[in-house]
């Protein structure tokens, strides 16, 4: 875990409103595990004041520029433009200075080899699942159920396929893949593979629905959550979610940044639908 001042290597729109940013990130390949995140800062700029949390989509090494130089390490973020911070991010160019705090948080538990793995991604929620798939695909049967509102929200599925992941796409408007919610696909899938483990990331209503289904099939579930974060390191206590056993009289909160962002379903309190991140759009 580190705070590094670094630079953008590339930043491209990959689907309307979705951008993919490659950042020079020495040390990450050794440190980061699937499901972890970074706190990203556009240097010197204010607003935004606070850093923004982003999952790590992928990491790797760039070919060295010349023989004597070590290859350059990078990470890739994929982000959706939703507010003031991501609006500024989309304007960044190669060479622009940025800061990364990370890798942060607890990632996915990879589970047992050979066990079947089902990844469920909703829109931008797909991001943390790619590195997870990379790690698991060698010794497990991995499939990805990818959902979105329209085909614009279906991103990087080909890359999962290239890994050897079986993919199923659904969109709410039917503009790509099956028409409907990804959770319907999940139900069908679990009918056939009740002993799989599910890994889900996406909007809160999707995650809540996935949890209900997994409970019903008694399938182990890990979810990656979003929360408003100020520090990302457990210092501000701003990012909590309700843990299992939470009641109003005896509240029980867990920091998403240090205990998560990935939780086992049983660690969380699923009674309340307030568990949603009330996102903002407008805190200029």
């Amino acid at each position, binding site marked *: *875990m*580190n*705070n590094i001042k670094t630079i953008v290597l590339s930043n491209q729109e990959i689907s309307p409103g979705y951008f993919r940013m490659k950042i020079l990130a020495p040390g990450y390949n050794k440190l980061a595990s699937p499901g972890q995140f970074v706190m990203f*800062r556009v240097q010197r700029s*204010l*607003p*935004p*004041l*606070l*850093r923004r949390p982003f999952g790590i989509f992928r990491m790797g090494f760039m070919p060295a520029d010349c023989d004597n130089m070590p290859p350059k390490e990078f990470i890739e973020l994929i982000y959706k433009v939703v507010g003031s911070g991501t609006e500024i991010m989309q304007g960044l160019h190669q060479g622009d200075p940025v*800061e990364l*705090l990370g890798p942060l948080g607890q990632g996915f538990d990879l589970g047992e080899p050979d066990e079947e793995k089902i990844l469920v991604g909703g829109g931008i929620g797909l991001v943390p699942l790619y590195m997870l798939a990379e790690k698991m695909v060698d010794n497990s049967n991995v499939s990805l159920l990818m959902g979105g509102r329209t085909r614009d929200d279906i991103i990087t599925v080909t890359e999962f396929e290239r890994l050897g992941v079986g993919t199923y796409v659904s969109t709410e408007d039917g503009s790509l893949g099956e028409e409907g919610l990804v959770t319907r696909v999940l139900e069908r899938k679990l009918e056939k593979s009740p002993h799989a483990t599910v890994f889900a990331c996406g909007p809160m209503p999707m995650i809540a629905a996935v949890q209900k289904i997994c409970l019903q099939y008694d399938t182990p579930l890990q979810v990656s959550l979003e*929360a*408003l*974060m*100020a*520090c*990302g*390191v*457990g*210092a*501000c*206590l*701003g*990012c*909590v*979610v309700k843990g299992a056993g939470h009641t109003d009289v*005896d*509240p*029980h*909160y867990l920091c998403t940044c240090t205990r998560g962002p990935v939780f086992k379903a049983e660690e969380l309190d699923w009674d309340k639908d*307030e568990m949603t*991140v*009330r996102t*903002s*759009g*407008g*805190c*200029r």
Partner: protein
Amino acid sequence: MMSDDKIIQPSLAVEIAGLKLKNPVMPASGTFGYGEEYSRYLDLNQLGAVVTKGMSLHPKAGNNVPRICETVSGMLNAIGLQNVGVDAFLEEKMPFLQRYDCPVIVNFFGNTQDEYGEVAARLDDVPGVAALEMNISCPNVKHGGIIFGTDPKAAFAAISLVRKRTSKPLIVKLTPNVTDIQVTARAAEDAGADALSLINTLTGMAVDVKTRKPRLANVIGGLSGPAIRPIAVRLVHQVVQAVQIPVIGIGGISRAMDALEFLIVGAKAVQVGTANFVDPNAMATIIRGLEEFCRDEGVADINDLIGSLEL
């Protein structure tokens, strides 16, 4: 300046209520956890002191979410003073801090006068606790939830009680949400505070216009960050003029220049809050910046800057 006058290594050391600090920079309570959280990013031994998250007699779970929200050049928080409680703090958190050569200031609060007194008492003989910082921005449950810090009489009574129960240097942290901060400041001094720190957050609110809901579950929260600095500088300026005891300046500090404003109006030290979130290294950069400023301006001892405001 002539070259043989050149200041090679300006002295940044300051003293507050008998407490010797390497330099005047420390974190603000609640923005630095229990020290451990940031120890990977920053050598705690560099700091003037460490200030802990606010501690209460019993563990406190805190408020419902959302607890934070970004505003223009600032943020609102309504954490609800979540903390592990003083006993768990002493057992689980303090040993880590005792390993460092850095004074530990423990921030604490209570919902009644007696709770304040009890926490202070438990911290009194703990080695490594260099001073207590009493947060009086807490609702007084015995008196209808009015904040201790907005009622000079309640503040005086609570501080007097705490004073009796601790032999450690006692810093009282003032709230800015008052008509006349000089009145609270004097009440705290009269009640036996050894130093004052200010400002705590300004109360604020933000609304999500789409959902028409407050952005914080608690509706109202505390505003911090660069946006509030001019208000904080004004309040520190006023308090310095009202009391004899030393003052620690807090509010929107993220650069050495910001810290200098507080020192120049008369603060003996500063606390850095929200800026830690933005840059875990902020305090180290500020310390370096103060050193550089002193060197550039030919100031051999930072104490010569303190209170140097020219009116």
